[in-house]
Each structure stands twice: as structure tokens, then as C-alpha cells.
């Protein structure tokens, strides 16, 4: 969690924000990053358009970019933790260059590796992830001030002319569910949700 003096954003809750996002969805794809991010996505109610990562820390945005490039008419949301994004900051430049307008990225920023024992990330208190995104060329990047602002930014992203990144400060609570760790079923159902293939 970045606590620079200029910041005036509310500390929110990952599960609550994820439920708010999912409640408004129809056939949009959602990519949930490793750990708590996809646990809360699972807990918000499984849907075949959700993809849950069980490893490959840092790849939520790249996977979402691939989906967005393959299906430019479908809105793609990606949920990623701050620690995960720090592993793959370069992807922000790639996404800025390709600029898919159907991609909305959410960074859940609590400044800690909650799931491994709540150790602070190297960025905690010093690095502004939204500023990093803007400097990477993602002009539509902003912090959500509170829950209403988060919902407004999500809506706004659907009409955007380029990719959107939304930073949310969150508390140190763990995820509220546990994703069923069956990678083949997750992938098969996601492909069904994307209209690529029928289930057996």
C-alpha cells in the first residue's frame, strides 16, 4: 500500500470489490491472478468466463492481453495483486504498445505478500503503481478513491479508447474462498465460456 502524502484513497476490501465487479458482468472474461486474487474471484461465484491462475505469478495481465487480442469484441478484466505485478512490470509497456481497448486491469494493492505471511513488498510505501502504469504508457490509469469510484471507473473503462488500469488500495485480509485446483477443468470451462469449444 503506497502511503504517499498526496494519496487520499480509501482502504477497501478485495472480496467486496470483486463481488461488486462480478455482480455487473454478463459474458466478459475475468482473469484472476495467483492466490487471494483468484480465491476472491472464485468466492464471488464461479462463472465459465473466469480463469483462475494456480501459479505463474505475474501473468494475469499477459494472459488477459492474449484473450483480449484473440477476442477484440469481448471485454476482458484482469485482477492482479501488487506483489504479482511487481514480478512482471514490463508487461505494462507491452500492453501500452498493443493498446487493446477491451482490456481493464485492476491492481489490488495492499503492499504485502498477504498469503506468505504478510511480509511487505519492496514497493510498499515507496512505489506508486498507478504512476508506474502511466509512465509505462497506460494513460487511462487511476486510483479508485472509494467503492463508488471503483464501480464508476469499471463502467468508464467499457467505453475507453484504450486499455484501462485501476489501482485499489485494499486491507490485509486473506481471500474468502478456495479455488478448486483442477487446472484442466479450469481451462476447459474457460474455453467453453469463451465460446471456443463445447464441454464433453
Amino acid at each position, binding site marked *: 500500500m503506497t502511503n504517499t502524502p498526496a494519496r487520499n484513497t480509501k482502504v477497501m476490501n478485495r472480496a467486496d470489490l470483486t463481488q461488486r465487479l462480478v455482480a455487473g458482468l454478463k459474458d466478459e*472474461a475475468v*482473469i484472476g491472478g495467483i492466490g487471494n486474487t483468484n480465491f476472491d474471484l472464485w468466492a464471488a461465484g464461479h462463472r465459465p468466463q473466469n*480463469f483462475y*491462475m*494456480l*501459479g*505463474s*505469478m*505475474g*501473468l494475469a*495481465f*499477459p*494472459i*488477459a*492481453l*492474449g*484473450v*483480449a*487480442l*484473440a*477476442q477484440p469484441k*469481448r471485454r476482458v478484466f484482469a485482477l492482479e495483486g501488487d506483489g504479482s505485478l511487481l514480478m*512482471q*512490470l*514490463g*508487461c505494462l*509497456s*507491452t500492453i501500452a*504498445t*498493443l493498446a487493446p481497448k477491451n482490456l481493464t486491469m485492476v491492481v489490488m494493492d495492499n503492499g504485502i505478500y498477504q498469503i506468505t505471511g504478510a511480509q511487505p513488498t519492496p514497493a510498499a510505501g515507496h512505489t506508486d503503481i498507478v504512476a508506474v502504469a502511466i509512465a509505462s504508457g497506460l494513460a487511462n490509469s487511476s486510483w479508485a478513491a472509494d467503492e463508488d469510484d471503483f464501480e464508476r471507473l469499471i463502467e468508464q473503462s467499457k467505453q475507453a479508447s484504450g486499455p484501462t488500469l485501476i489501482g485499489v488500495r485494499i486491507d490485509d485480509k486473506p481471500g474468502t474462498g478456495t479455488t478448486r485446483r483442477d*487446472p*484442466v477443468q*479450469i*481451462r476447459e470451462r*474457460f*474455453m467453453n465460456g*469463451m*465460446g*471456443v469449444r463445447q464441454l464433453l
Partner: protein
Amino acid sequence: MAAAEQASSKDKAKDKSQDAATTWHGIVLQTLKRNEIRLVPYVPDRVLTTLIKDLHADPYFTTFPTAREEEAVGIVSGAWMAGMRGAVLMQTSGFATLANVLASLAVPYQIPLIMFVSERGTLGEFNYGQALVCRTMRPVLDSLAMEHHTITRLDELEFIADRSIKQAVTTQAPVALILSPLLTGGKTFDK
């Protein structure tokens, strides 16, 4: 003058079609196309220069650099699941960064990840670090029981690449196609 221009563009087209049949990069490009692989993210390598240039020049392909090889693996995995085929180009040292995402994404999710790896570190390597990292590649592939082939001959390239791509797709399993210096000429100290 117009006729001369026409003639020269015809020559160029002829060069290209000869390229397609007689150079390793031409064969790789045509094999990708024939297998409907449109998305080709890469981390560059000197040996791959002509292939990368030709991919950019061909509107059939969506090709672009990524900051890390892992990122490219994530992109083609997402695209595959959403109905678009891809392949990743990289160098040996780039492959060495992939063990975690192969073991936690491509293999367990059964994603037909297609990788072309330009082989550094052998047959005239001048950088000891490259020689060492090269030795980690096949043990990593073998430890995950991943399909891999080292392509050394031009006359075998199309067969190996085409069959391996088809096998990856139909068996939903990743494959690494290692482009040996015997095929590409590699990178040597005096270049």
C-alpha cells in the same frame, strides 16, 4: 521505368518465394502460416533477426516484442484459450527463465505452447555464461517430460516443425523446437 519497377518487384517476389522454400526462416514462417499461427510474441535474438523482420512485414501475423519470455508465454496461453493460435520465439537464455511458468501454467493446464528456441551456448559459443545456461535447457524440458526436438538440418525442418505443431495442438501439450547452429549458422565471435 514502370516496367523496370514491375520487373524488380517480380524479382523480389521470386526471391521471397525462394526464401520460403530454401531458408530456415522462410520455412518457419510458412509452417506457422500453414498451421494458422498468427500471434508471435518474441524476445529477440541475433539469429532470429530475419525471421522477426519477415514476420513484421507480413500482415498475416501479429508479432511484437515482450519484456520477458514468461510474458510471451502468458500472452499465447490466453490467446489459445480464446481461440487464437500463437508461438513464442526466444533464445536459450530466455528459455532458462521459464521453468516456473511451464510447470505451473503450460503443462498442468494442458496448453499447446509452441516455442522456437534459437540455440546459443554450443558449437562455437564464445560466452561461457551462454554455454552454461544452454546445459540447463534439455534437463528442464526432460524433467517435465516435455516434447522437444533439436533441428539441425534444413531438409528436416518443415517435417519436424509442422508435425510438432500439429501434435502440440491435438495432444494439448507444449513443445520446444530448438534451432541448432547447424541449421541457422548460429552466432560466432567474429560476427
